[in-house]
Every structure is written in C-alpha cells, then in structure tokens.
C-alpha cells in the first residue's frame, strides 16, 4: 500500500466541539495506526492473518476498554474518546476495530458491569493491557438475529456448572484467553459465564474462507461437558438484556468506526480526483465526480453530527438502544455507499490493494451484518416509533403501541 496520507474531513468544524485531550487521544491513535498498522494491513488482509504483534500497542493507545476506570487498569476515558479511538482504528481497517470493540465492549464491559470484584481484578487489568485477549459468544449456528432462541446451556452440578453447546462467528475466539459465553440455565434463563482457555472440553477452532474482515480472526466455540467453576458466572445480571447491553456499547463504537471507514474512502477519492488527469483536466473538474464527492461529504457531515450527539447522550447515560441502532445502521450504510462511489472515482486503481477502499468495502459487508443486521436495526427503529414489535410472524403484541 502507498504511504498513508490520511487527514480527516471536518466540513462543519466538528473539531471545535472536541476537548484538547480528545484531539490528543485521536491524533495519538492515528499516529500509532499510521506507524504500526497501515504499512502491514494489506499483507495481513490478503493472507487472512491477524497481526498479533500489534495487541500490546492497542493496549498502550487505550483501545482496550477506553472507558474502564483506572482502578481496573483502564484509561477511564469518556465515551467520545472511545468513539474517536474506534474511528481511527476502523479508518485503517474494520477488522482492527472489531478486535478492539470485542475486547472493550463485549468482554471488558460485561465483566466491569456484571462481574464480581474478584472477576474484575482478575481479568480487567490484563485485558486492558492486551496481555489477555477475550471474545464474546452469543451467536450460534442456528441462532443469529434471534439469539434468545439459543440452545447452549449449563447445569448446576453443585460445586460447578456443566456447559454444553456451540457458538459460531466469534471474533477473536481462536486466540482468546477468556470467552464471555451466554448460555441458558435449567430454567431457560440466559447468564454470562467466563470460560477460560484450557478448560477441559472447550475448544475454539478457527473459521476459514471469510472474504471480508480478513485481518480479524473468527472462530467457533465448542463446549463439550465443560466444567465451569461457579465463581466464573457473571453474578450481576441475567436475561437477554445482559448481552444486549454489551451490544449497545459495541454498536456505539461501530457507529464511530464505520464513519472512520467512510472518511478514509472520501479522503482518498478527493485526493485522487485532484491528481488524476483525463481529457486534459483533473477528474475532479467533472460535474459527475463533484456530485459524488459533494454527496459523500454531505453524508459524512450528517453522520458526524449524529454520532457526536450520540456520544454526548452516552456520556450522560441517556442514549437509548434504539438511538444507538439508528446510528449503527445509518453510518454503516453511508460508509458502504461512500466506499462504492469512492471506488468508482478511482477507476481501475480503485480495485487494487494500492488503496484501502476495496478492502473497506468488503469489510463493511460484515459490519452491516454483525451486531444486528441492517434490517434488524430498521425493525428496532420501527418498533421504537410505533411501539409494535414486528420481529416474528406471530400476531403482533399491540399492548405497548404508542
């Protein structure tokens, strides 16, 4: 890949809304990414390999649990800092951001919110530094959009739990030291269990053949009569709301991240349109190119405003799940559209690995599906404004109609 010249578009002077520390955190993440990841990402992506050597660096720039308090080894930053770090990571590669999202929001967040003091002390500092890698097992082969139907289960055996079942599509799984696994107890209630690497009957084989998010490692989690110590159950919360609250935090990070991918595509397309000469003029002089660029920056600017406001709401503890769904859905959609348009501006060069646009485009196909598909988020907004859930084909429950 050619030198990483990225600078972020800021049409509405959004930087004025950031504190000096926000900017320092963002610029640090960007400098680190440019130095350590941009030069190698294409190679790892092509070989479908995860660059493990960058894990400690991600810890150093605060990308693992940015909002985890300092007493547990985290940096104790606000939600906007978290968003900015995710934006810088995904600006480079969605897989990089995925690794960090999973660790932060799907592993550290539930341990911090629902874990015992011993669990927090044992896992959070090591996860924050990158000494430990974690994963989150919710999706199963037969339960994706409908995780509540999961069949992975555990039985109380007196001095331990016995865990059985399988999870699929689990980011970071093959490299994880600890997995936050969601499973049903004998009464059918969902609980989180911390399953540690090396426990008997537990394996995490890698899934191959992904044509998207190739620089992120994905695997299965297989539980065959795994004896899980009782102290590994997350005591603080049970029910489907527990994993969903983690998804809120991750989806919030994705909203920032996807916008980063969009900004990177726009930045490259704008630069290219000023350099590439056809018919004697830079292609940016053609109205059809300008239309593409103008629409891209308009969508980016709208998304920046939406995302920043969501950050403020998150900081105040007021963001609803439905508000987060809207931002995740919108930002991934505009990022995909911008990637496609940007790729066209680059003509044939747009399909090569000299530029990151095609990689972003392929990556975003995962991002539009995981953490709630595009359509599921639409149904969430629909339910939020009408009060009527429409996720199943059963007669809708009208009791909460607005």
């Amino acid at each position, binding site marked *: 890949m050619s030198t990483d*010249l990225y*600078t972020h578009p800021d049409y509405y002077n959004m930087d004025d809304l950031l504190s*000096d*520390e926000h*900017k*320092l*955190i963002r610029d*640090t993440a960007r*400098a*680190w990414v440019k*130095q350590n990841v941009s030069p190698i990402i294409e190679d790892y992506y092509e070989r479908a390999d995860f660059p493990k050597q960058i894990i400690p660096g991600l810890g*150093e*720039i*605060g990308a693992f649990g940015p909002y985890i308090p*300092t007493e547990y080894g985290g*940096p*104790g*930053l606000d939600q906007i800092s978290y968003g900015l770090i995710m934006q810088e990571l995904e600006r480079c590669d969605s897989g990089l951001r995925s690794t960090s999202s999973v660790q932060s929001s799907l592993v550290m967040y539930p341990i911090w919110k629902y874990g015992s003091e011993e669990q927090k002390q044992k896992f959070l500092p090591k996860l924050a530094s990158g000494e430990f890698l974690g994963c989150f097992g919710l999706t199963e082969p037969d339960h994706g959009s409908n995780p509540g139907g999961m069949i992975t289960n555990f039985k109380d055996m007196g001095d331990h739990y016995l865990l059985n079942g399988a999870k699929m599509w689990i980011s970071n799984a093959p490299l994880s030291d600890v997995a936050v696994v969601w499973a049903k107890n004998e009464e059918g209630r969902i609980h989180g269990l911390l399953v540690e690497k090396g426990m008997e009957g537990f394996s995490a084989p890698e899934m191959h053949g992904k044509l998207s998010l190739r620089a992120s490692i994905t695997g299965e989690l297989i539980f065959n009569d795994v004896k899980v110590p009782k102290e590994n159950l997350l005591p603080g919360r049970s029910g489907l709301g527990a994993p969903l609250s983690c998804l809120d935090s991750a989806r919030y990070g994705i909203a920032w991240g996807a916008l980063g991918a969009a900004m990177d595509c726009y930045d490259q397309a704008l630069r290219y349109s000023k350099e590439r000469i056809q018919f004697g003029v830079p292609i940016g002089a053609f109205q059809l190119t300008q239309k593409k660029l103008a629409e891209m920056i308009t969508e980016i600017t709208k998304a920046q405003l939406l995302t920043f406001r969501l950050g403020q709401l998150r900081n105040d503890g007021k963001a609803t799940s439905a508000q987060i769904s809207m931002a995740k859905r919108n930002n991934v959609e505009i990022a995909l559209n911008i990637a496609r348009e940007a790729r066209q501006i680059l003509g044939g060069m747009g399909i090569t690995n000299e530029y990151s646009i095609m990689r972003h485009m392929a990556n975003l196909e995962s991002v539009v599906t995981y953490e709630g598909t595009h359509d599921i988020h639409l149904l969430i907004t629909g339910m939020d404004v009408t009060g009527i859930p429409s996720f199943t084909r059963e007669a809708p429950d009208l009791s909460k109609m607005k």
Partner: protein
Amino acid sequence: MKFLVCISKVPDTTSKIDFTDNNSKFNEAGVQFIVNPYDEWYALVRALELKESLGGSVTTITVGPATDEPIIRKALAIGADNAVRINAEPGDAYFTAHQIAEYAKANAFDVVLTGKETINYNGSQIGGMVAELMGTPYISLATKMDLNGNTATLEKEMVGGVEIVEVNTPFVLSAAKGMAEQRIPNMRGIMAARTKPLEVIEPVPCDDLTSFVSFELPPEKSEVKLVDADNIGELVNLLHNEAKVI
C-alpha cells in the same frame, strides 16, 4: 541532570499556507497545529532517554499564548516532567531566545535542547542566541549526544564526514535528525499529562530587534515538459535556451 527542552507550535505540514495583514501575518484560520517535529522527535525524546538512564528531570519551555497549551500537553504526554509557558506572543527570535535564556539561567539547567529549526520559519536562531545570552557553549545540528558525568560527547554531520565534539555542561544544543526516534505517547502518558505542572510565567521586558515586513508564497510550479528519450538534442536545447541552466 536537568534538561530544558524548547518546544514550539508549528502548522501541520499539510496546512494550506496564506497570509493576512498585507502579507505580514500568517493566517491561522483552519490550521492544525503540531509540536515542531525537530523539538518533539529529536530534542525531547533524547532528553527523555538520557533522563531515563541517568536520572534527573525534563522540563519543556514554550514562549507563546494559552492557545499553545495543547502542544505543551502533548510534550507532557510523551514524558516531560513539567512545563513552563512564557505568556507572550513570540516576537522575533531575539525576544523568544531572551525569554528562554532568562528562565534557563534562573533555574540552572545542565543541558538546553532545541530543534535544529522550526518547520514554519526555519530560522535556526534560537539555540545560538540562548547560548550567547547564557554565556554557554552551543553545539548546532547535533545528531547524537551521550553524557558521561558532566561531559557530553556530540556528533554532528558535516560534508563528507562526522565531527565529534566534547563539551562540559551547561551547554545548549540544537538537535537534528538521527538524535532519537519519534515516540508516540501512550494512554498512560496522556492521562498523566492531565496533572503534570504547567507553570505560566509572565515575560521579562524585551524588545524585538527585527520585524516581519511581508511574506511571499513560492511561485506556482510550472508545467513539466517531457522530452522523448531519443531526442537528447532537444533536451540540451531546452536546458540551454529556455531553462538557461547549462
């Protein structure tokens, strides 16, 4: 060992450069500012490395208004122990050097480090002036520095070779590429920078000795002429008659 590192704020290299006030003032609107790379990557990092191996402290000094504080915080995040800001618009090099020298003299630093130049004005004057005002030796354009007790050994590049200089503290140096490697702050550093002391000091009276009359942008690059490889005659002709370089 007490190190004092001079840190200044410069426009990011990708900034659009233009001027206001009859071309006598740089237009700061919409410009992103960074720490002058020679100050940050070479002077500051080498001071930190030496402090880490020999003990002591690293103080940064900046002559500038409160809007310079973000870049000062960055220097603290990279690892400086404390910072001083002389609360004044930096006038000419003499004014700035005078402020730095007054502070350095009063606080007995062993080594004062500057970058070899700032990437905006490229004046390369501060280090020499500070040394003169302090009455200490000055080593310019140093690419390497080691300290043994109170004796420093420095290298500087010269045409076709390297010059090795020995000097006793206190002294002033300007740091060039090679002195150290860029350090990206880590989150622990950024968090620690929140509470590190940043002292604001009012300037000592001093007049500028020079003033900026006006700035001009370099002429626009003219179009490139491509000459066919087989047509050496035309190339010679163009170089001789049009470019007038041969």
